[in-house]
């Protein structure tokens, strides 16, 4: 056998380099999985495009956009946001699967940086998110959606969504580390629907019962949707006297992003590194 001896202890600089390298290796792992099983990726990408058609033409035939305008133009920011939020469940499922089948224990027993696994998982999801957005935007353009405020504002909207998605993937990472089993994670998936539904993503909130409207207005899904409508120049931008998160949607989304990252990055890394069982 080749005499490969165990690596010696390293300086802090080397350790940082290794942590980054380990994280990238794990991102590469996710990409490798996609390469071996492209069917899953295709399904994941087609689903949002399918939603565009379904919601756009089924709901669109019945719903009147406040202030007038094309329903599909109204809908697209909501669908972008919904797809952004699904990353929570995707990452939860991936992390829980690793925890359940022992791969995570192997990682833990190796001289790897404790942060590499969470960073790898969330980093891979970010790449997937970019791809998702491209497909969605393509589908949107086909059904008549257009950004109206120029390249800069459009990019800002997508960057905002990417940042939010990255923060949400850390929520998913934490949930996955806590549930530690794929079946439970699977059962959590439907929960993402009420979260995205009780919002302004698909329908105006005006008609909702008062209590639900409060929930919807403060739902980060609503803020993200409103921010996109604002930046894309799509119909349905809330009035200036709306509740704070809707009157200042970009600031609200940035705030959500920062808070989620500040809470769930350290929480995930600590939970991953905790040794108990």
């Amino acid at each position, binding site marked *: *056998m*080749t*005499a*490969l*001896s*165990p*690596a*010696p*202890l390293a300086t802090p600089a080397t350790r940082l380099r*290794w942590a980054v*390298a*380990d994280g990238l*290796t*794990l991102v*590469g*792992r996710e990409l*490798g*999985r996609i390469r*071996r*099983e492209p069917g899953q990726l295709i399904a994941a990408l087609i689903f949002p495009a399918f939603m565009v058609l379904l919601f756009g033409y089924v709901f669109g035939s019945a719903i009147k956009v406040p202030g007038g305008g094309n329903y599909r133009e109204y809908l697209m920011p909501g669908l972008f946001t919904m797809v952004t939020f699904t990353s929570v469940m995707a990452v939860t499922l991936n992390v829980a699967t690793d925890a359940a*089948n*022992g*791969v995570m*224990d*192997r*990682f*833990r*027993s*190796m*001289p*790897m940086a404790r942060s*590499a696994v969470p960073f790898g998982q969330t980093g891979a999801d970010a790449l997937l998110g970019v791809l998702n957005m491209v497909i969605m935007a393509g589908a949107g353009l086909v059904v008549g959606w257009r950004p109206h405020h120029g390249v800069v504002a459009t990019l800002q909207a997508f960057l905002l969504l990417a940042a939010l998605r990255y923060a949400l993937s850390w929520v998913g990472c934490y949930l996955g580390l806590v549930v530690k089993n794929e079946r439970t994670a699977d059962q959590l998936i439907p929960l993402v629907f009420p979260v995205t539904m009780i919002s302004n993503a698909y329908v105006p909130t005006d008609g909702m019962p008062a209590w639900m409207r409060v929930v919807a207005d403060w739902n980060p899904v609503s803020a993200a949707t409103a921010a996109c409508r604002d930046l894309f120049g799509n119909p349905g931008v809330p009035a200036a006297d709306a509740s704070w998160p809707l009157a200042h949607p970009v600031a609200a989304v940035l705030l959500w992003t920062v808070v989620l990252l500040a809470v769930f990055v350290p929480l995930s890394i600590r939970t991953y590194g905790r*040794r*108990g*069982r």
Partner: protein
Amino acid sequence: MEEMIVAEGLHKRFGDTRALRGLDLRVPAGTVCGVLGPNGAGKTTAVRILATLSDPDSGHARIAGHDVVREADRVRGLIGLAGQYAAVDEKLTGRDNLRMFGRLHHLSRAAARRRADELLERFGLAAAADRLVSGYSGGMRRRLDLIASLIVRPRVLFLDEPTTGLDPRSRGEIWDAVRALAGDGTTVLLTTQYLEEADRLADDIAVVDHGRVIATGAPDALKATIGDRLDVVLEDPALGDRAAAVLSALAGAAAEAEEDRLSVAVRGGRVRLADVVRELDRAGVAAADVALRRPTLDEVFLRLTDETPKEAAR
């Protein structure tokens, strides 16, 4: 001899369950230690602590002199871990898995590739290397799991029930692999419920029950502690009582009878077969078969675990 694995007074409880109750273990460098015990004896908990996956409530453990809690990173660089659950990525191929683990051990891309090829070849997985692991048989998965822990040659290898649930042929393949590693000088700690496995692979056995080591020794030494057994098959079962009296007198222990079979424990060298045949003949008992045999490790194990006080289970 240098001690590669040392555990002293390990305690661990999960809620109301006391998984470990003062476990002590010493494994000299370059040997194979078989940790034998029934389900729930604390074997996996002990391995998880030694492999830095879990902290003990009290007690200490060292791998090659490094504390598993305070110097966990150091320890992680010295150990390999393979277990009853194949800890590999099912959605990757065997080769991709090994390359990934190689990269995570900070081998260069080229070195990780070379090492993966070499291990796949050596452990007979080269033909399946480019198939998804989800399509592997249980035995192939377990073998991949084992070689994934050998990417950087570990000083200490932990194998937690590596053959549980495998068919006899796959089990044999894992055994061959473990023997080859031990031959290379790797210290191996192997937990198992299979007595035969410990018997075949281990230099020393630690019998664990209720979170404690209740006996240690080489397999033969453990067998010697309960002595040989004398088995007699009678031609006429009706003479069982008479034959039992003869055997009990010879062996100095009570004979157990079951239909036409009698069995009695004998301390080493105390009874000669010729004497047995002659005494039975003198009593007028015809024997169809008389045999003196070493006890199986199963008998040793049952005896030892039976002696552990029952209230210790609580």
